[in-house]
């Protein structure tokens, strides 16, 4: 007997409201295609620019616990703020984030990254210097590559010392368009 969409939705909302989930996630639309957005009770924990729910489900369970459920209500705040950001109507995110499982160095780098303002860019070397490891530009690049919450933690604002865009999980075209949206590129 097939569970109706309505019954399915009721269960997912009740489970989220109960607070027993380790992670709730949903796939949401964006101008760059679908995004997989996930949150724990402590905050937003993942944004995947290229959703692959089967694989990412295992990744979420491994990082945060096996009680993972698709739930729109678990991520609706993040979804709304992302929509506003893409529409050019929001410059900063007011969201708690959960960086559980992130090593100390990466966490320090991501904390600094979160302070890079909308519409500005910085370099890997500058971020490295800000966390007190001026020669660790390459390690900072690795942290950017593995940024668990792109867009919200704005690794698209980090460019090479010569101003080149270098790389982006969603592709260089996306990085360029995000910087244009913010007015950081003409």
């Amino acid at each position: 007997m097939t569970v109706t969409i309505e019954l399915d939705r009721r269960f997912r909302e009740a489970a989220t409201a109960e607070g027993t989930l380790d992670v709730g996630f949903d796939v949401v639309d964006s101008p760059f295609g679908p995004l997989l957005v996930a949150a724990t009770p402590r905050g937003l924990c993942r944004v995947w620019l290229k959703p692959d729910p089967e694989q990412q489900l295992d990744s979420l369970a491994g990082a945060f616990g096996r009680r993972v459920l698709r739930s729109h209500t678990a991520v609706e705040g993040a979804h709304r703020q992302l929509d506003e950001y893409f529409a050019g109507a929001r410059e900063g995110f007011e969201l708690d984030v959960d960086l559980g499982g992130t090593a100390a160095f990466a966490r320090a780098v991501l904390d600094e990254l979160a302070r890079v303002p909308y519409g500005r860019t910085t370099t890997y070397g500058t971020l490295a210097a800000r966390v007190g490891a001026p020669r660790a530009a390459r390690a900072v690049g690795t942290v950017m590559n593995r940024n668990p919450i792109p867009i919200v933690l704005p690794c698209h604002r980090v460019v090479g010392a010569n101003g080149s865009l270098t790389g982006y999980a969603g592709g260089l075209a996306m990085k360029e368009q995000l910087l244009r949206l913010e007015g950081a590129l003409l």
Partner: protein
Amino acid sequence: MALIPPFERFYVEHRDVVLGFLRKRMAREAAEDAFQETFLRALRGYDRLEHGEHLRAWVLTIAARIAIDSGRRARPTVHELPELPVVDGRPAYAEIEHLAGQLPPTERAAVVLRYAYDLAYDDIAAALDSSPEAARQAASSGIRRLRAQDLPPGGTP
């Protein structure tokens, strides 16, 4: 030993079977309420599961328990029990389920979950919505009753 899947995969895999199981025993609205309660209870106990064997039997046992309670509320004198789930044809489980068939419902569920499905008492408590100590007592009193063949009248044939 089977790995325990993320809850989403477990839910998607078993939701239709659970709803079908409940609809055979209850009217639509009650079955839908019981469906939600079944998976909420499963979710509450899910982080305490120790392995991923027989998850369908586990969730159907939770559903059976909820159906029994709801049937009791509706018709307090009923003696008929829902059948426990048939799982993948492994004789040991079938045998224990058969032997336990005439036990009172809580003891039956505790005996089957403990000795047929090898669940820890924490998990059984989650499935029965009681405490681990109550689950342990129900299982041991069920086993004593089976040993003594001291079965109350009115169980399922």
